[in-house]
């Protein structure tokens, strides 16, 4: 499935967050969006999820406009999202978190949903005995895996990842990056990630786009990122400040 942001503008009061923003995520490829804090990365994903309504322009998935907060839109069923903090529901055990969509949106029976949840936990290398634990008893890495399991349990065609490795140690971050890469390839999904972690970008990206001040500064395949077509992109990727 292809995602297209077409001349999207988003304002919060007087502040312009996305400014005539246009970008495409091609079917079956993993697009990583990078950029400084406040550049508009999270808002970009939220417009594609229908969580934020553009003031102008539109976001399309396979040519169909994304609707704002329409949970019954068929497109929502095709999407999996991994939030930065995991966003697991504290009052539910891990397996019910993972199977949430299956239980409440697809009305699957509890036994079948639990089995699907277990399969998803296996896919993210989480022990099945975490299934009955509460999210607040999990480590950061386990929380991210559980959240990833929830994102993939519905066999999505589109996957979004919001800062998937933030707050994780380098080893755990690498594990999560490889899990993401594996799941994206497994489902042949269109993936869009936002990250500050260049190691994460190098692991999961097919294409990279850099956003600055609400607009696309540069985009191209991963192989072109370090060729320094754009010096600003090059400095960002290398972690070099402007100070002499």
């Amino acid at each position, binding site marked *: 499935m292809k995602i297209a942001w077409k001349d999207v503008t988003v304002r919060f009061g007087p502040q312009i967050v996305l400014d005539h923003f246009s970008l495409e995520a091609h079917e079956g490829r993993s697009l990583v969006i990078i950029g400084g804090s406040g550049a508009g990365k999270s808002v970009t994903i939220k417009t594609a999820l*229908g969580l934020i309504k553009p003031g102008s322009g539109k976001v399309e998935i396979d040519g169909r406009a994304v609707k704002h907060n329409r*949970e019954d839109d068929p497109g929502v069923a095709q999407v999996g999202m991994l939030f930065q903090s995991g*966003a697991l529901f504290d009052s539910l055990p891990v397996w019910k978190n993972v199977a949430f969509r299956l239980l*409440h949106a697809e009305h699957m029976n509890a036994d079948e949903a639990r089995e699907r949840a277990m399969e998803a936990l296996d896919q993210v290398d989480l022990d099945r005995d975490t299934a009955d634990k509460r999210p607040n008893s999990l480590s950061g890495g386990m929380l991210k895996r559980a959240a990833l399991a929830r994102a993939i349990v519905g066999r999505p065609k589109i996957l979004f990842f919001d800062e998937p490795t933030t707050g994780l140690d380098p080893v755990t971050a690498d594990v999560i990056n490889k899990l993401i890469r594996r799941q994206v390839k497994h489902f042949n999904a269109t993936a869009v990630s936002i990250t500050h972690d260049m190691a994460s970008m190098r692991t999961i990206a097919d294409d990279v786009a850099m956003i600055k001040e609400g607009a696309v500064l540069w985009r191209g395949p991963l192989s072109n990122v370090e060729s320094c077509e754009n010096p600003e992109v090059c400095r960002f990727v290398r972690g070099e400040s402007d100070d002499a």
Partner: protein
Amino acid sequence: MNPVRALGAGVLALLQSIGAVTVFALETLYAAVRPPFFGGQLLQQLFRLGFLSLPVVGLTALFTGAALALNIYTGGSRFNAESFVPNIVSLGIVRELGPVIAALMVSGRVSSGIAAEIGAMRATEQIDALHTLATDPMRYLIVPRVIAGVIVLPLLVIVANLIGILGGFAVSVQTLDFDPSVYIKNTIDILERWDVLSGLIKAAVFGFLLTLMGCYHGYNAEGGAQGVGQAATNAVVSAAVLIFAANFLLTSLFV
């Protein structure tokens, strides 16, 4: 700031809030009558809002009924009207104090709890997650809490009424030398069906208001932990104000 401008800004902000709450209430009512319905969530909220509020409502009612009896006796003795204590205690509790005191105590416990819980969900993107999991947060979070409030408040008020009248009875018999059987007879004789019904209608309205305020402030919480705390405070304050305002309107209608 110019005081006139400040006053104008305050009035506009108040009107904006009233409008936003009204829209939220209408969205909740609309969501409440359209599937899917989350029965499991409703049962959970009935337990949390209702059963777990029994101790605080019962204790409050007991002391309120006892204090009311003492005050009515003191006032009535100035007019040789001490014998009216059971009549006025039962009427006062059933028509007014039972619903209002129960609602205020429950709002302190429930409105703040709901606002904090839903506000924390907002701050940690759990509400956004519901949207991405094809689940309407209004139907999953808000509607079960509001419906539970409308159901449990009348039930809690029935308990509050009984315990409040019991409190008045205990004080009157033990301290004021009332004859128990005369007290009970006067309590029952004075009450009409509409006295009880009007109190229960008030309770249902109060239940709607206090849960709605908890949900509204939690759902719209901003600014992390501080915002969640502010939402909890605002929920209790706005619920209390609305309970008193609604009580006045309903009492005017029911007399």
